[in-house]
C-alpha cells in the first residue's frame, strides 16, 4: 500500500465563475488524523466531495488509497467511509435497520456482519436503542450511529464532513475519542470542521480559506509560525473603553474580546506589555490581569486569515 493514503495534486473545482477549490496540493499519510479547517464556504466540503467521487474535479488529480478519483471512482468507494454533513441516516428506519442497510450496501461479508453490527452498536453506545427509530435519537447518538454506519466495512480511509456540527460539547469529546480509537486501529481519517479548537486533536491540519490552503502542518508547527505574534490576555474593568483605547495604540495587530476579557496580539513583546498597560491606565481603566499566553489554534487561524485578507487588499 502507498505510504500516502491521500494525495492531492493541483485540484481545482469551479462552479461557473466561482472557484470553490483553488489548486489544492497536499498529502495525507496512512493512519493520520488529518484536519481540514476553515470558515464556512472555504471549500472544505467541496474538496471532500471530490475525493469521495461525488463531484467531478474541474482540473487536477487526486488519489485515495492509491486509486485515481477521476478514473477509478467506483473502486475508491469500496475503500472509503463517508459521513456527510447532514448525518444522512434514514429517519424512519430503526438503528438496527440502518446498520443492516449499510452493511448490505458495503457488501460486508455475511460471516462478519453480526460482529460488525455489535461492534458499531457498542462503539456508539446505542446497544439498548437498537430498535428505536432513528428519528427519535438525539444529535449525539445520531452522529455516532452515522459514524458507525460509515465504518461497517472497515474502510482504510474515512472522510468525515463536519461531523461535530450542532452537537453538544460532551458528545463532541466522546466523538473525538472514537476517532482516536479508529486512528489507533490503523484507519486514516480526513476530518473537516469549523471548530478551530478541534484542530488540536489532529495530527496534521490544513487551513483552507477561499478555496486555497493557506497553512499546512502540525498544530504545534502552526502555532510556532506565529512566533512573531505575541498574544496577551487581559482582564479589564471597562471592556468597550479598553477596546477603543487600544485601537489607537501602535504595534498592536489585533484586539479581540475573549471570554470576559481581551486578547491582544502584538509584534514586539516587551514594548507591547508596557504600552498596553500604559494606555489603559492613562484612560483610567483598571487592569487586574495582563499576561502573555500561548496562542490557541483559533488565534493562529484568525491571524492567518487576517494576513490573507491584508494580502488581498
Amino acid at each position, binding site marked *: 500500500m502507498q505510504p500516502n493514503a491521500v494525495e492531492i495534486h493541483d485540484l481545482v473545482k469551479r462552479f461557473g465563475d466561482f472557484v470553490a477549490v483553488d489548486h489544492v496540493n497536499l498529502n495525507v499519510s496512512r493512519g493520520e488524523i488529518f484536519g481540514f479547517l476553515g470558515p464556512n464556504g472555504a471549500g472544505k466540503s467541496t474538496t471532500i466531495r471530490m475525493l469521495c467521487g*461525488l463531484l467531478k474535479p474541474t482540473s487536477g488529480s487526486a488519489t485515495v488509497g492509491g486509486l485515481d478519483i477521476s478514473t477509478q471512482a467506483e473502486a475508491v*468507494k469500496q475503500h472509503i467511509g463517508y459521513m456527510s*454533513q*447532514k448525518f*444522512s441516516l434514514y429517519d424512519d428506519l430503526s438503528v438496527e*435497520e440502518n446498520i443492516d442497510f*449499510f452493511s448490505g450496501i458495503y457488501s460486508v461479508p455475511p460471516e462478519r456482519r453480526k460482529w460488525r453490527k455489535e461492534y458499531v452498536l457498542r462503539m456508539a453506545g446505542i446497544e439498548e436503542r437498537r430498535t428505536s427509530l432513528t428519528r427519535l435519537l438525539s444529535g449525539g447518538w445520531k452522529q455516532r450511529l452515522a459514524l458507525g454506519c460509515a465504518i461497517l466495512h472497515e474502510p482504510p480511509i474515512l472522510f468525515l464532513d463536519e461531523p461535530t456540527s450542532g452537537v453538544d460539547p460532551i458528545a463532541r469529546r466522546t466523538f473525538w475519542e472514537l476517532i482516536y480509537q479508529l486512528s489507533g486501529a490503523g484507519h486514516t481519517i480526513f476530518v473537516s470542521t469549523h471548530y478551530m479548537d478541534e484542530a488540536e486533536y489532529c495530527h496534521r491540519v490544513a487551513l483552507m480559506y477561499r478555496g486555497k490552503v493557506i497553512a499546512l502542518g502540525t498544530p504545534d508547527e502552526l502555532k510556532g509560525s506565529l512566533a512573531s505574534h505575541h498574544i496577551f490576555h487581559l482582564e479589564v474593568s471597562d471592556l468597550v473603553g479598553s477596546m477603543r483605547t487600544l485601537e489607537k495604540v501602535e504595534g498592536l495587530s489585533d484586539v479581540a474580546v475573549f471570554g470576559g476579557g481581551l486578547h491582544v496580539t502584538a509584534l514586539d513583546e516587551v514594548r507591547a506589555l508596557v504600552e498596553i498597560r500604559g494606555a489603559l491606565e492613562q484612560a483610567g481603566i483598571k487592569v487586574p490581569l495582563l499576561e502573555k499566553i500561548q496562542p490557541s489554534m483559533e488565534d493562529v487561524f484568525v491571524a492567518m486569515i487576517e494576513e490573507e485578507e491584508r494580502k488581498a487588499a
Partner: protein
Amino acid sequence: MSLRRLKAVTKKELLHIVRDYRSLWLAIALPLVMLLLFGYALTLDVDRIPTYVYDQDHTPESRDLINQFRGSRYFQILEAVNSYRATDRAIDKSTILLSIVVPKYYSRHLLAGEEADVQLLVDGSDSNTASIALGYADAVVQSYAAQLRSDAQVRRGGQALQVPVEPRIRVWYNSDLKSKNFIVPGLIAVTMMIIASMLSSLTIAREWENGTMEQLLSTPVRPGELVLGKLIAYFALGIVDMLISIIVGVFIFQVPFRGDVWFLFFTSCLFLFGALSWGIFLSASTRSQLMAFQLGMLSSFLPGYLLSGFIYSITNMPKVIQLISYVVPARYFVNILNGVFLKGVGTRVLWLEVVMLAVYAGLVFVGASRKMRLKVA
C-alpha cells in the same frame, strides 16, 4: 450488479413503504375506495329519469300515451303539471331532466290519421344522459306508434300490420350493459398509475431533499441497483393492489372474468414495471418532490385516467389526442384488461399490446438507470 447490495436496497425500500402510513393508505385504501365508488355509486347507466308530464289534451288517447312512459323503467314521472312554466322552471332548477308534453288536439289528429306529435323537452346540459334519454324515449314512442298502427289495421278488419324489419340486437361481452363491468377492470390500470406516478416518482427526489442520496452516492452502490431495488419494492405493492382489485372486482362486484389468469398476471407485471420505471425516471430527473409529483400527475396519472380508454372511448376523441394516446402505456393495458375480463381473449388478439408494453418497460427502465447520475454535480 451485486445481489447483496440489491437486497439491502430492496429491504430498505420495503421498510420505507410499510412505515409510511400515508403512502400505504394511498396505495391500498384509496384504490379500494375508488373500487367501491365505481362499483356501487359511479355509473353512466341511465335509469329512472326524472320527468314531468304536461297533458294538454286530457283524453284517453293522451293518457294511454303517457302510460307508455309510466310503464318504462327508464322514466320516473314525478308529477303531472299544468303549465309550461312549471316544466320550464323544473328544468332550470334541474328537478327534472325531461318533460313530456302532449299538445291539445293530440287525440283528434291521431284518430284522423293526421300527424300527431308528442313533445319532449330535454335538459341538454348532461349530453350523455340526454342522448340516452332521448334514445329511450324514441324507442318507447316508435314501438307505441307501431302498435297503434297495427291495432288500427286490425280494427279495420285487416291483418295486424307487421313490422317489416326489426333490429335483433345482441350485445357481446357485456349483455347487461353495465358500466361497472368495463370500468372496474380498467380501474386496475388506474390504481397502478396512482402507485407509479404518486409514490415511485417521489422516492428519489425525497432522498435528494433529505440528503441521504449524497450518502448513498459515496458508497459502492450502482445506479442500476438503486433503481431496481426501489422498483422491486413498489412492484410488490402494486401486485398486492392488483390482487385486491381483481378479487374485489370479481367476487364482490361480479365482474365477469373470462380470460386466462396467467396472461393477466404476466401483462400486469409488465405494465407495472414500465409504469414504475417511468415514475422513478421522473424522480431521478428532478430533485424537488413537488416537481416530481406534478410531473407524475401530468404525465402518468392524468393520461392514464383520461387517455387510456378507461372511461372515455379513444375513438371519439380528436385525431391529435388519439395520436397522443398511442404513447400512453395505460391504453394498451386497458385493452388487455377489457380483453381478459370481458372478452376472454389472449395473446392472439392482444399480441400488439403486449409487445408495446414490453418495449415501453424496457426503454424506460434503461432511461431511469441512466438518469441516476452518480455525481452530485
